[in-house]
């Protein structure tokens, strides 16, 4: 790894003059905060503490650490793409203090042993990982996974992620079983019988470029099916990386009916469209694909009216030699942890005049609430320091040299960004970025 981040154990520190934004605690003002032996002691005006180190955070925001509902850390099985170590480094570099890992590892995370292994690895690395387990054994869409044991081991959700359970009968039983244990279901809504070999969004651009497309209908049909299963079962279901205007509309309606549904969108679906494909660059090949401007606008409207609850990266590392293959066979995905905050600040805080509180809700508080992790998404006295210091006005350009992830497949290189994380505090360790 090129850039290894080393955390400093925080013994006794006062951060002065930080603009703390913490909607859960209804804080939105300039204050000091005191951390001792990794834990938050208190916050308030003009704090005094003998022998404490001082960090002046004038003009900086202090926000609860970001929580990502959707990452691929690839361990075990695909350590050439990412490890829990390099994934955690990328997360910290991006201001994330906790991540939900997807279960498409090798072996798949479909049993308690893999859940335990991932959590232990994260623990050694002083990082917070919340593993998700599979819905079905081996992500094959046939037999229900051992969810009770996975939940006991620490799994926070169940999902077959990229392998949406096509058989509605199996899905129904798997969702019911998950609901037994209060495990949220995370749904990558994609009917593979429609998307088949599509490499990008099906539309005018795919027709112009001579590439096979996957239409919005692949996501819309899957979304509709899952909403009906939620109506039947009343299970908690979270739609991952919503990308179509149709899905946004359906989720909006379902939530208005009171169904227990939540949803996320990714920075790349917020910032980019299928026009990016003109150079046939496989770094823009992701699933779901980048859609049209109409869809992008619908995603932003959905975020702003509360239809979409959270922003998640779908950080999906792949080795260059894999991404360099023919566009039809190159794997789907982009890394996202290290660019996410800058992209969201640029597009939404500066671009659409969001309040900092809105950013915190979408990237920290609501994700923590979806996971029922009340120690995250807010400041809490007596708990480990998990927060970030942010310069909202800093201009920067995301570059390959800065990447901490083991893989380099980002769709955001060269993008001019405004707003950057300067310090990440995780479990009471301080990382200066």
């Amino acid at each position, binding site marked *: 790894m090129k850039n290894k981040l080393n955390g400093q154990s925080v013994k006794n520190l006062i951060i002065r003059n930080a603009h703390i934004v913490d909607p859960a605690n209804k804080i939105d003002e300039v204050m000091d905060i005191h951390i001792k032996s990794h834990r938050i002691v208190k916050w308030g005006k003009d704090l005094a503490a003998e022998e404490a180190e001082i960090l002046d955070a004038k003009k900086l925001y202090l926000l609860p650490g970001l929580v990502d509902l959707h990452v691929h850390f690839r361990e075990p099985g695909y350590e050439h793409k990412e490890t829990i170590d390099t994934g955690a480094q990328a997360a910290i570099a991006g201001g994330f203090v906790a991540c939900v890992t997807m279960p498409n590892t090798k072996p798949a995370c479909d049993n308690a042993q893999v859940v335990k292994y991932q959590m232990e690895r994260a623990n050694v690395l002083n990082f917070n990982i919340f593993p998700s387990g599979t819905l079905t054994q081996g992500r094959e869409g046939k037999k229900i996974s051992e969810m009770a044991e996975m939940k006991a081991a620490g799994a926070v959700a169940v999902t077959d992620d990229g392998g949406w359970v096509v058989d509605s009968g199996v899905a129904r039983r798997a969702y019911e079983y998950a609901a037994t244990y209060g495990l949220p279901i995370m749904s990558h809504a994609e009917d593979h019988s429609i998307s088949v070999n599509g490499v990008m969004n*099906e*539309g*005018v651009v*795919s*027709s*112009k*470029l*001579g*590439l*096979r*497309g996957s*239409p919005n209908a692949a996501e819309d049909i899957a979304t509709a099916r899952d909403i009906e299963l939620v109506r039947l079962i009343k299970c908690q279901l979270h739609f991952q990386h919503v990308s179509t205007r149709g899905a946004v509309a359906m989720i909006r309606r379902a939530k208005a009916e009171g169904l227990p549904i939540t949803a996320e969108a990714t920075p790349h679906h917020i910032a980019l469209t299928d026009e990016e494909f003109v*150079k*046939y*660059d496989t770094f823009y090949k992701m699933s779901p694909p980048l859609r049209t401007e109409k869809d992008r606008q619908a995603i932003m409207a959905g975020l702003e009216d509360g239809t979409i609850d959270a922003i998640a990266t779908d950080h999906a590392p792949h080795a260059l*030699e894999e991404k*360099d*293959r*023919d*566009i*039809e*066979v190159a794997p789907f995905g982009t890394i996202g942890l290290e660019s996410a905050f800058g992209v969201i600040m640029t597009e939404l805080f500066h671009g659409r005049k969001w309040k900092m509180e809105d950013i915190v809700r979408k990237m920290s508080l609501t994700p923590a609430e979806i996971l029922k992790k009340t120690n995250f998404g807010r400041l809490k006295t007596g708990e480990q320091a998990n927060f970030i210091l942010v310069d909202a006005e800093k201009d920067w350009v995301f570059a390959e040299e800065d990447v901490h992830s083991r893989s380099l497949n980002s769709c955001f290189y060269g993008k001019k960004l405004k707003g950057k994380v300067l310090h990440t505090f995780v479990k009471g360790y301080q990382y200066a970025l």
Partner: protein
Amino acid sequence: MTQNGKLSWKRKDLLGLRDLSAEEIELILDTAKSFSEVSQREVKKVPVMRGKTVVNLFLEPSTRTRVSFELAEKRLSADTISMASGGSSMTKGESLWDTIANIEALKVDIIVMRHGSSGAPHRVSNYTKCGIVNAGDGINEHPTQGLLDMFTLREIKGKIKGLKVVFVGDILHSRVARSNVWGLTKLGAEVVICGPKTLIPWGIEELGVKVIHDVKKAIDGADAVTLLRIQMERQNETLFPSIREYASTFGMNTELFKCAKPDAILMHPGPVNRGVEIESALADSPQSYILKQVTNGIAVRMAVLYLLSGALKNEK
């Protein structure tokens, strides 16, 4: 791009007709016209590419296009080597980028490339100093085929602007159709696409073409009709029910062809499936210009190689 009122060629690559201006397309067609005479001579050779090396890198099966390029190169006096996927180190796991880098290291001037992946030549062209000629990429483009179709059309009809040109068949998987659509619309032809909805790309109308599913209406008053091969290898995708029904609904025959203008010409990029998309008698009729297309292919490819090698020389 214009020098003393005359257009000069600046590109090192020919990737597709999507990128070209109407003027550039016309320059290629004009240049091809002067080369078409070479193949009529007793000594079918001009020395304009003497000392240039061309590699034909065909990573997908091809006979007619490869032979046509090889002959074009030889008639321009270039030194040529042909590589096919079976005989290359790519079957040993070498990446396309490494293959191209190795060819470049051999001081090759132009790579003529056929590849099964859409956009492969576009991606490669950014990484090499060699000129790249796209000889067909996936389902995207086959620019020299598009150019030779337009060359044939212009030769017979004297112009392209205002002509009604109809394409019947599998448009979805046809790189030939896509190149023709880009080129013909730029030169002012009226382009009509015909086939079942399953074989028409989404939103193709936005490229300035008309889609008509009834073949009789589609070819009504046409100046030229190009038939596209039904790709037997794609039968498992359930795009149409049977070859029999396709032949009876979209297959062209002498009777049906009377709906086009009396002097309409029939074209086909080959290979022809007789009895499927075209009745045998029609394929052999005087209105069929299928073999003329093959002959013209050499002149067009000579023109492209000649223009590209000129641009490469200027760059040095």
